């Protein structure tokens, strides 16, 4: 018999879970977090975090078990609505579950080039190109100049 992988390292399960936490946008401009393949990075970061890691890992395991009890394929086989209900039902007993996931999922997701494009940002680092910004309002500047100390 094959061992079931620990929930954090079960790629299919984690893809489904992360797609629940940050789903694809209705417009299709933004991918779901699971579809971006971020679960290994999130799992690695959580496993290295002595404070958030253990409670999140326990919570993720609980989600996996609850989902398997409802569907033979677990979370990956459930509709998003049904999956969300499974997670919601466990938040009272695992209050750090979503917070802990988002602590590491948010950086991974919002620095991804596809996501940056989706939110209207160029998919590049700030340097070396930088950005243009609006000049100081000339009317405001004139008001200040009138108040200047000589």
């Amino acid at each position, binding site marked *: 018999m094959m061992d079931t992988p620990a929930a954090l390292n079960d790629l299919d399960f984690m893809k489904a879970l992360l797609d*629940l*936490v*940050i*789903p694809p*946008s*209705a417009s299709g401009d*933004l991918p779901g977090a699971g579809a971006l393949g971020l679960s290994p990075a999130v799992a690695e970061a959580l496993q290295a975090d002595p404070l958030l890691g253990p409670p999140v890992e326990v919570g993720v395991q609980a989600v996996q078990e609850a989902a398997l009890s409802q569907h033979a394929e677990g979370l990956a086989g459930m509709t*998003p609505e049904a999956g*969300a209900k499974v997670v919601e039902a466990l938040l009272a007993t695992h209050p750090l579950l*979503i*917070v802990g996931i*988002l*602590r590491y999922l*948010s*950086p*991974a*997701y*919002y*620095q*991804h*080039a596809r*996501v*940056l494009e989706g*939110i*209207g*940002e160029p*998919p*590049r*680092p*700030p*340097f*070396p*190109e*930088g*950005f*243009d*910004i*609006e*000049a*100081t*309002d000339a009317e*405001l*500047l004139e*008001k*200040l*100049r009138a*108040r*200047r*100390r*000589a």
Partner: protein
Amino acid sequence: MSNEPVGVLVIGAGASGAAFAWSIADAGMSVLCLDQGPWMKQRDYPSNGLDWEERGMGDFSTSPNVRGLPADYPVNEEDSDISPLMFNAVGGSTILWAAHFPRLTPKDFRMKSEDGVGEDWPIDYETLEPYFALNDRMMGVSGLEGDPAYPYHEPPLPPLPLGKSGNTLASGFEKLGWHWWPSDSAILSQEYEGREACINLGPCITGCAHGAKASTDITYWPVAQRKGVRVRANCRVREITVREDGMADGVLYYDEVGRLQEQKAEIVVLACNGIGTPRLLLNSKSKRHPDGLANSSGRVGKNLMFHPYAMITGIFEEPLQSRRGPMGCSFWSHEFYQTDRSREFVRGYSFEAIRGLGPVQTALWGMIHGLIPWGEDHHRSFARLYDHTATLLGIAEDLPEETNTVTLDAELTDAHGIPAPKVTYRLSENSRNMLAHAVERAKEALTAAGAVETVVDPLMRAAGWHLMGTARMGRNSTTSVVNERGQAHDVKNLFVVDGSVFVSAGAVNPTSTIQAFALYVADSIKKNIETLFDDA
């Protein structure tokens, strides 16, 4: 590496150590600076990569306890309402600062005379004025001349653009008739001294990859080195040694491979910030100085002052380009800076208008405040916040209190076994009332500027950027550590030039004043070298 005795030994290559070393090099003495951190490289700064925000929470965090790099020492902050922040490298905390560059105001030097609290400084604004101006030129400061909150001064470069977020916030202050003025910023609005103008990268507080933001590794140090000043990086000082006659003899330090070395000097200068300096003095115990060096007054490590911060963010319907441009440098307001006896606090606070957050920080900030949920509504909520926020920071003047301290931790040590500092700090009722007032006024300003909602962090914990007061200056040797020239009362060839010497905190960022003081001390030594060690 030679440990031949030197004329002047500076400990710490940050804001004050660099300014001091550059100036004292003109005295004709050999000058050596030891710093526990490395030289930084602009190509290594986070804004070179897509993970720039994430690295700001990791190896470029402003907290040494989060970074835990070899150059860092741990700080026990369990008994502190505010976490101390710093960076350890050549350039010190100017590597990771926002470069918001106000000066203390003239009245800040006369707190007791003006308001009957704390103590007056033994020097005044006018004494430091030429050094403020000199420092502005060395760092490369942009700003608008004529701010009525200050005596007239002309920054060497024109002000940075406010951007849409700054223009929007400023319009709120205009509607209310409140003082506001574009910040003096140690960031270049034009090419200057071989450095290029700011290109609005945004994340100044994780290091400027473009070099437009002043940090002393690219401003003072190259010039100081051309004058012959030597910098020895990755060298951590353990203690200051003393001679039989009680004068400083030099230091014991760990070199870059961890070997204990001795460096003798005629003059020792501490520039280690308001936590590092008392830590080193308290760790320099001897038969003659059983309570630590220069501590006959018992004031070393006492009167720790931060600037308590409240953060008030407005959410706007219009996009604000808010994460672009120098994050901490838009404008300031001194509308509530001075004491008003009708309020429930003495002294006052300033506002600093800052720019918005990047996408990662927006997502995390929104989650923490319950504004961005997981699941179906995540993207709509994110879009409502991202690029739609602008923030006012209320910066309160902390009063000096002897119960707020830096001591040596009984158990915690750094990698070399040197006792770590323990910070004990509680927010006073005066500061609490001040921040509450700032929150309400900020809400008014944001609403006047068009915000549809405001979000409040009433006391930012991770905001201990400004470390002051722990080796205060004064004329009375029983109530202060150093005199008005930064010279230790107890040890005539020992000087302190960092924020430790501050008698009061004012309600603005201290670096401009710290550096002006360091330049003043260097000048004072040069002018009085013949009589420097005479008894007063």
